[in-house]
């Protein structure tokens, strides 16, 4: 099969507005225009349009559905690639080898792609836009990234982002699209299984039920939370779900804890979160996938008891299969605009977190335990220091009062500390913390400590430690580490508690773990604030040494 490619310049408004018609792409949904806006915002100046593209996803849909219809449908898709520079020079190159090498040379300029399906009601198969180019605004954090290799004209390209697909209303709804987006991210980023949309449908509807069989094909108009959970389990995820409580009299949704805390914690852990938004006037609701956050540059003055870094989030970035990538979902109802029809506060009915296996403790419970632990540790700090002084060899220096290790930290109530709780790999925690600005005695213990696959970490800062968007200028004073496989009761999940001037480690001998339970603590006179975790950083070498 010949696979012709076309290329062109995207410079003027007219170039963008006529792009779809010039390429003879029909779009009844309007999503394509939104994606064009996104690529234009990312700096696209040129495109290559690849025809006759065989898309694995659409091939699966064609095999399961379109090939069974009376009316014939085409199997072949096309793919539209965007670059941040004019690529029309490729058309003037005299040899094929020069063309392929020319595309190779533009790898750094690649901004991503849109797979166009041959169905006018839902043309967007897959779209991935280079996340780092979506915005240069430092207030925007895109938490969920995976690399997508692309083979074009014999060249190898790559884009890092989060995928979008459009619901194909003939066979699925936004729920399947949301499952697909999360599932594809885990496939590309974490080695999870590859699932086509028909396979997701099959998993969601097995066992089937009366509700989803109100439409044909079953499940093509909506799914229930149960259906979504079944599909996510088939994708090797272990979802945890939290629901709001509807206050029907006042048409309000009541959450036990603010939903932004839940969403922010898991996004901060690099895990996309499915959000169920209520429909208008009793209509079917809408599912989107949260992939990032928009942060304000200082803690709001209204942050009350037990503030958290979720209070810094003004919007969540969501991939919405009907509206496009990185749409801004306001957290607060007061921030609703015409730009997006929902807000988290008014409209989020449930959040669903597709966790990996070996996580047996939710983020809100980890945060509750961590808060309790740090309050208890601060209250008893002098007891640990007194004991350290008592067993010190004669002639040892004197341990001063804990207050002198960090007067700012101990000058506020622990309940006023700002918490930031996230899930991370034990080995990543260890790698980061050994390269952070913690005291050497603390690192000496960490060096020999074995960790479970996943740990919950809660960082604690003062309100003023979190000003600005520069991660190097933000400060952490204390942190708690919990075993994500541990029990939520009895303190069995405790691994590490660290406050200025004191750190406590729970230990055991693997040969006899119950009888050998022990404790190690380290008391020091000096302490300095250290760096918060930064997504994608394994160390803090890029921060200036004298940064405060």
């Amino acid at each position: 099969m010949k696979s012709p490619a076309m290329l062109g310049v995207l410079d003027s408004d007219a170039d963008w507005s006529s792009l779809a018609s010039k390429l003879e792409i029909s779009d009844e949904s309007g999503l394509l225009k939104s994606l064009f806006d996104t690529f234009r915002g990312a700096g696209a100046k040129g495109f290559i349009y690849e025809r006759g593209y065989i898309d694995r996803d659409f091939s699966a849909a064609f095999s399961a559905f379109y090939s069974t219809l009376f009316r014939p449908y085409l199997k072949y898709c096309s793919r539209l690639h965007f670059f941040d520079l004019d690529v029309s020079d490729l058309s003037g190159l005299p040899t094929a080898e020069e063309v392929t090498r020319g595309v190779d040379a533009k790898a750094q300029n690649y901004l991503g792609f849109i797979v166009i399906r041959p169905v006018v009601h839902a043309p967007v198969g897959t779209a991935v836009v280079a996340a780092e180019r979506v915005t240069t605004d430092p207030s925007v954090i895109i938490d969920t990234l995976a690399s997508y290799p692309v083979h074009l004209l014999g060249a190898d390209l790559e884009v890092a982002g989060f995928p979008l697909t459009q619901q194909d209303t003939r066979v699925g709804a936004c729920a399947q699209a949301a499952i697909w987006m999360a599932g594809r991210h885990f496939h590309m980023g974490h080695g999870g299984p590859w699932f086509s949309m028909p396979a997701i449908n099959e998993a969601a509807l097995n066992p089937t039920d009366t509700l989803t069989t109100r439409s044909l094909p079953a499940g093509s108009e909506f799914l229930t939370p149960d259906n979504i959970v079944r599909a996510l389990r088939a994708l090797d995820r272990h979802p945890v779900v939290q629901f709001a409580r509807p206050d029907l009299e006042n048409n309000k949704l009541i959450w036990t804890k603010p939903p932004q805390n839940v969403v922010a914690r898991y996004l901060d852990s690099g895990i996309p979160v499915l959000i169920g938004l209520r429909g208008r006037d009793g209509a079917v609701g809408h599912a989107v996938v949260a992939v990032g956050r928009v942060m304000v540059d200082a803690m709001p003055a209204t942050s009350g008891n037990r503030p958290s870094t979720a209070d810094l989030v003004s919007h969540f970035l969501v991939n919405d299969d009907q509206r496009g990538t990185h749409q801004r979902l306001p957290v607060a109802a007061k921030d609703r605009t015409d730009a997006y029809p929902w807000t988290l506060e008014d409209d989020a009915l449930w959040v669903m977190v597709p966790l990996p296996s070996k996580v047996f403790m939710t983020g809100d419970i980890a945060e509750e335990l961590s808060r309790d632990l740090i309050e208890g540790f601060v209250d008893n700090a002098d007891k640990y220091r007194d004991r350290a002084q008592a067993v010190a060899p004669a002639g040892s220096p004197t341990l001063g009062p804990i207050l002198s290790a960090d007067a700012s930290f101990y000058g506020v109530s622990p309940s006023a500390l700002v918490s930031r709780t996230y899930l991370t790999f034990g080995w990543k925690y260890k790698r980061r913390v050994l390269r952070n600005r913690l005291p050497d005695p603390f690192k000496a213990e960490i060096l020999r400590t074995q960790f479970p696959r996943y740990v919950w970490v809660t960082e604690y800062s003062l309100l003023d430690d979190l000003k600005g968007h520069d991660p190097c200028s933000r400060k952490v004073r204390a942190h708690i580490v919990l075993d994500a496989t541990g029990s939520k009761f009895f303190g069995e999940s405790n691994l590490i508690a660290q406050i200025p001037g004191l750190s406590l480690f729970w230990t055991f001998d693997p040969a006899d773990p119950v009888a050998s339970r022990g404790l190690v603590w380290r008391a020091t006179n000096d302490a300095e604030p250290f760096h918060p975790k930064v997504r994608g950083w394994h160390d803090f070498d890029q921060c200036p040494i004298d940064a405060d």
Partner: protein
Amino acid sequence: MDNGITSLDDLQCFGRVEIKSRTEFEEFTLRPSQDAVRAIEELESASIVSEQRLGTFTVG
């Protein structure tokens, strides 16, 4: 050791305490307070009640 195999530095130093006895462990360990246990139980029960009301909410 004198067999050419070395180990990392001895961790014992000023300010370090290591305890292994059961009695001392119980004295110095930190366990969730009654307030924390109650808060966790409330979190979990609230979630179950909500789920019963919204289990058939559909998205499409």
